[in-house]
């Protein structure tokens, strides 16, 4: 009997070790692309990242040099427009889901937001093409900002709802029991308590749409020059990378690598600031 138990025990330990190795392997496999992407981008892109890259316009085909200044600025303009649309609508929608409404209605809104979060980005592009580009008779910065903003709304709505739900019920009750009107309590007490979480959600949504290319193909379109009007097409880093990467020129390929590196760094900076924000939050409550 005891001998059998010993064998069982060894077999059990072996199975445990096997399982542990398997899961560790999968976890490593999951983060491997990140390491590879960073390594490859750094290797191929860092050579083309120079002062000109950040300050000059693209040169015509065949001429060496030039940069992506217009695309970098364009990306920030598009993100700014997107935030103007996505942040207020998304945050207030999240407040509704968390603080108001009926459970039935909110179930449907939540379900719709989750479906929207799963809609492929190229479909967003086509929708905004039909809704904005066609009536305005042309590609524009507006259309690009609108499509990115619309993509941010359901993302921000769900994260805002989630972080507001983390605010203990006791704070809501305490505020209402003081004779504070509900909307004031929400804005000045509940939102303030959850502010870091809301900001985190907004930053994550920005990081997510910053790299979108497909929806911009039909909307912002891209521009080889400086953009001077929101009614005109505008350049964006992902678009420029796409155009340069599929071109037959070696110089453009190098610049595409550099652009990809810069884009990834911008997104990493956003993600790291999210980490810092959330770490601070957990430390304070602990």
């Amino acid at each position, binding site marked *: 009997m005891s001998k059998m138990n010993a064998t069982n025990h060894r077999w059990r330990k072996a199975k445990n070790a096997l399982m542990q190795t398997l899961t560790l392997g999968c976890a490593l496999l999951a983060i491997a692309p990140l390491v590879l992407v960073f390594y490859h981008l750094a290797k191929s892109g860092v050579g083309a990242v120079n002062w000109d890259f950040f300050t000059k316009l693209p040169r015509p085909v065949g001429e060496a040099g030039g940069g992506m200044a217009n695309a970098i600025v364009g990306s920030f303009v598009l993100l700014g427009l997107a935030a103007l649309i996505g942040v207020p609508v998304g945050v207030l929608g999240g407040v509704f889901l968390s603080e108001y409404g*009926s*459970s039935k209605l909110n179930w449907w809104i939540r379900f719709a937001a989750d479906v929207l979060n799963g809609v492929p980005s190229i479909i967003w592009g086509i929708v905004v093409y039909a809704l904005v580009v066609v009536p305005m008779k042309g590609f524009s910065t507006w259309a690009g900002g609108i499509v990115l903003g619309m993509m941010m709304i359901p993302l921000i709505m769900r994260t805002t709802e989630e972080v507001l739900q983390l605010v*203990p019920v*006791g*704070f*809501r*009750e*305490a*505020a*209402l*029991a*003081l*004779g*504070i*009107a*509900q909307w*004031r*309590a929400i804005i*000045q*007490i509940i939102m*303030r*308590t959850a*502010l870091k979480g809301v900001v985190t959600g907004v930053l994550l949504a920005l990081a997510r749409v910053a790299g979108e290319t497909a929806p911009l193909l039909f909307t912002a379109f891209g521009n080889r020059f400086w953009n001077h009007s929101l009614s005109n097409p505008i350049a964006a880093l992902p678009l420029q990378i796409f155009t340069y990467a599929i071109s037959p020129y070696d110089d453009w390929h190098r610049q595409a690598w550099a652009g990809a590196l810069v884009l990834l760094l911008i997104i990493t900076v956003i993600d790291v600031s999210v980490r810092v924000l959330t770490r601070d939050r957990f430390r*304070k*409550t602990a």
Partner: protein
Amino acid sequence: MNPTMISDEEKRGPVDPPETQVVGVRSPAPVVPPRPGAVLHGDTVPALTVRNLAVYFGKNKVLKDVSFEVQARAVTAIIGPSGCGKSTFLRSLNRMHELVPEARIEGEIRLGGQDIYGPGVDPVIVRRRVGMVFQKSNPFPTMSIADNVTVGLRLNGIRTRSVLAERTEQSLRMAALWDEVKHRLHAPAMSLSGGQQQRLCIARALAVRPEVLLMDEPASALDPLATSKIESLILELKKDYTIVIVTHNMQQAARVSDYTAFFYLGELVEFGLTSSIFTSPTQKRTEDYVTGRFG
């Protein structure tokens, strides 16, 4: 109130530790000496009149036909076993139970003559007149001690600094917290101890100058010393306020209250002077509960 008085109250605490009173509830010496003039339906004024109150959550009737008067400037304790409806009753007094979807009431509750459930009565206004302190202390974590005290005023449009400063000191003094925090009013509220946080919540509720203060087991999460501070505070506050306190602790009810209402299974079984509820209850169920035979 002045600081020396508070420390007197605190000194009195250890003289009658809670433990010695467990068997004392039925002793000939009443735990709360009947005060002259504290006669039911006598010369006292009802602050709240509850008539035929029934509360439903959906189809579930959690309170049935409750009628009694809460006396002004006195402490009324609500006792009863878990689930008897005492918290629901307390919350119906400032319409906080309405936060539960599908909650509704029948009957009426009058606050100084006005039906708080009357047509056109805004629950926000009712709650300004009937303040509340909760079981778990809940100061707002993003605010300082001073900001917590004045939040009810600031969010109702009072911005004058002198008024806010004056009300901060006054409320903290009334909550017997001033001396402990006067040098760090701008420190985060969360830096206070559990008992201090609860007194801060009392100060916050007092700052909007309510007529009635509801307390939902305000000391059940506190240690004996902090509990005795809260209890002395309640005895001080009743000079100016009408207090209704829900408690699980019968010794506490006996120590702090003038009147006691015993609830069981959603019904008001007995209401009367605390001394008579604890020494000569008229109902068998009250007697069984206060002597610890069930509950």
